[in-house]
């Protein structure tokens, strides 16, 4: 069987993101959500040398740099909250799929903020996502 490079990378990404859900639960069983977040960010920082764009950073507008930087702040808040959810007794098998439906909010806000339209599949996705939240919380 021939596995193409892109497929191998895709499967690796899928496994990595899936394993992370488990690690979130395992870590918050042993340390506080806040401590888990700090060490998570340290783990992230270890990859910074690979990603460092050098002088290319100077070519981007300050506004867009601030926006992407703020995206990181939101990501950190979301990451802290999922760790806190698990620390507060949420099951990994419930919290991970529950929080994975966050694109619902994006789809609802995108028409207002980005003047995008909700496509038919996205509309069905919103309904399914709300149903999923309802069932996972039951």
């Amino acid at each position, binding site marked *: 069987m021939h596995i193409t*490079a*892109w497929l191998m*990378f*895709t499967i690796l*990404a*899928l*496994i990595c*993101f*899936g*394993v992370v*859900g*488990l690690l979130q639960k395992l*870590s918050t*069983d*042993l*340390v*506080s959500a806040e*401590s*888990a*977040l*700090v060490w*998570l*960010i*340290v783990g*992230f920082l*270890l*990859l910074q040398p*690979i990603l460092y764009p050098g002088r290319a950073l100077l070519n981007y507008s300050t506004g867009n740099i601030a*926006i*992407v*930087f703020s*995206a*990181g702040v*939101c*990501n950190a808040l*979301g990451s802290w*909250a*999922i760790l*806190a959810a*698990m620390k507060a007794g*949420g*099951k*990994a*098998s419930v919290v*991970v*799929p529950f*929080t*994975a*439906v966050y694109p619902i909010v*994006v789809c609802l806000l*995108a028409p207002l*903020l980005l003047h995008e339209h909700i496509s038919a599949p*996205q509309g069905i*996705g*919103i309904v*399914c996502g709300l*149903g*999923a939240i309802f*069932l996972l919380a*039951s």
Partner: protein
Amino acid sequence: MIMLELSRTVKQRWFWYSVLTILGWAGWALLLKIGSEEIPSEPSLFLQTTGMIPLALILVVTGSSRGPQSNLGVVYSLLNGIITGIGILCLLAAYRSGGNTSVVAVTTSLYPLVTFALAILLLHEKLTKLQVCGLLLATVSIVLFSL
């Protein structure tokens, strides 16, 4: 019966933390969408990670991250960050090596199924039939959003 369970769940802290996660990550996705019009993936990831530092600093300086420490817990947390980063790098590599954007996005968005399988196998978590239906519905929803 479902409503009774639901009213019990909304009184639990994990539920509201999960809602906060949804809001935080939705903000992340929206801001990234705006910023990515000019900034490519790798520099964007560098800047995003830099954006995570202030919260870590606040938690360290205020002492919120103190408390009972466990070496194993620290290792799990470190791995959490490293593996997430590797996952993102693999995702970018998949796009760069010719993967169809939709196929890559849909496949990787199925990660809750991997977590679910691992949680059942390794943590022995149990879900009710309704929650399993919810998991499947969430999967359909995530796939539709990725299209």
